[in-house]
């Protein structure tokens, strides 16, 4: 797994983008803990860190595509799922696995 950030870097209920091996990823501190996804909207390559987050549902600000951050499943207008990454928090540090 790759180290991304300190857990304290992303406040509860917030999202933040990071670069990991040249790829933008989104770290999500949601209602059920830390999750991670691709940092780029699958629709039109907009950065998801500029989106909206209510603790459960992530919304891309550009065309309002939405996903459940527990599963990456599309909601509402979204026409496809969000690629989610395996996430682990250990000793206050957030790690993810980006599939090759």
């Amino acid at each position: 797994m790759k180290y991304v950030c300190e857990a304290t870097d992303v406040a509860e209920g917030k999202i933040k983008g990071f670069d990991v091996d040249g790829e933008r990823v989104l770290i999500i501190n949601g209602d059920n803990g830390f999750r991670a996804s691709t940092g780029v909207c699958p629709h039109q390559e907009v950065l998801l860190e500029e989106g909206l987050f209510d603790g459960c549902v992530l919304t891309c600000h550009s065309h309002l595509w939405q996903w459940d951050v527990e599963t990456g499943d599309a909601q509402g207008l979204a026409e496809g799922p969000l690629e989610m990454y395996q996430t682990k928090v250990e000793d206050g540090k957030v790690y993810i696995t980006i599939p090759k």
Partner: protein
Amino acid sequence: MKITIDAKNKTWSFPGTAQESCLQSGLAAGINMPYECATGTCGSCQARLVEGEVEDCWPEAPAREKLGENVRLLCQCNPKTDCTFETNNIVYDYDNFTVTPKRTTGKITHFELLTADVAEIKVSVDKVIHYHSGQFVTLECKEVPGARAYSMTNFDAAAEELSFVIKRKPGGGWSNWLFEYGAGVVGKKLRVHGAFGKAVFTPDIGKNLLIIAGGSGIAGMMAILSRAAETGYFKQYRGDVFFGVRRPEDGFFLKTFQELAARNEGKLSITVAFSDAEATEYVRKRYPELQFETGFIHEVAAEKMDGRYKNVRAYLAGPPPAVEAAQRILIIQGKLAPADIRLDKFN
């Protein structure tokens, strides 16, 4: 012959013939008449005949049995004279046309300064443009390269004259061209292309309206309000309008808002928010039907809409930061589904 339907929200009139049922004539005229089976069995199209004579085409129709005195099935009666019916239904009209963008030409017929940096222009078009309320067209003139998108402020299903509001923008080629000529632009020829835009309103959406608009973004919203008010939409659904400008002297369309709010008896609430100043006594007294607040438009809307997002369709327009902030509030605070947030992006 003239057929009149006195519905709960509005009185509609349309032509009828002895060969066609009142229901068929109404539907053909673009009125969304209440009906289901159209064949005399369900009773959905019942209405009380209050004036005139009709031919009862099927007196034994199954749905006739339970009807009261003078109550007829609109699908089973053809007019013999002008006639008037009363119905307890809310009845809207259809936007019974297809919008596909067309090119035409036109000329500016009117220029009026609404504030120091906002003007209204009217453009008569050589071919009718069909559009839904909330849509825009692009305008081009030979003096300035490129086309500019402007939303129509008026709604007319088959418009021969389009109205726009233009805000003067620093460095804006089109707006500066207009403002430098001033009333001298009247008579100038334009190329017109449209209509475009997805943030449209038609009465069949069946939802409370929420409009949040800053500055000249109010343009398309005026057409939406006009469409809704003309069809009696606010007899059934609530309307909340939030219009933001910097200072009282930047306000425009306030007289129109005042008239709309007065006509709609509390179902249409219109709030004007000034971001940089308090409302003056003058505007409060002159527009008593309007509410005035100080603050950014999205913050004012968030406070007043808290807990009132049930069955709401929102329309947003204006400066991108205000639109994005409003969008955030609607999704996070209002939990509105994205399909119920309509905006066209111009940035």
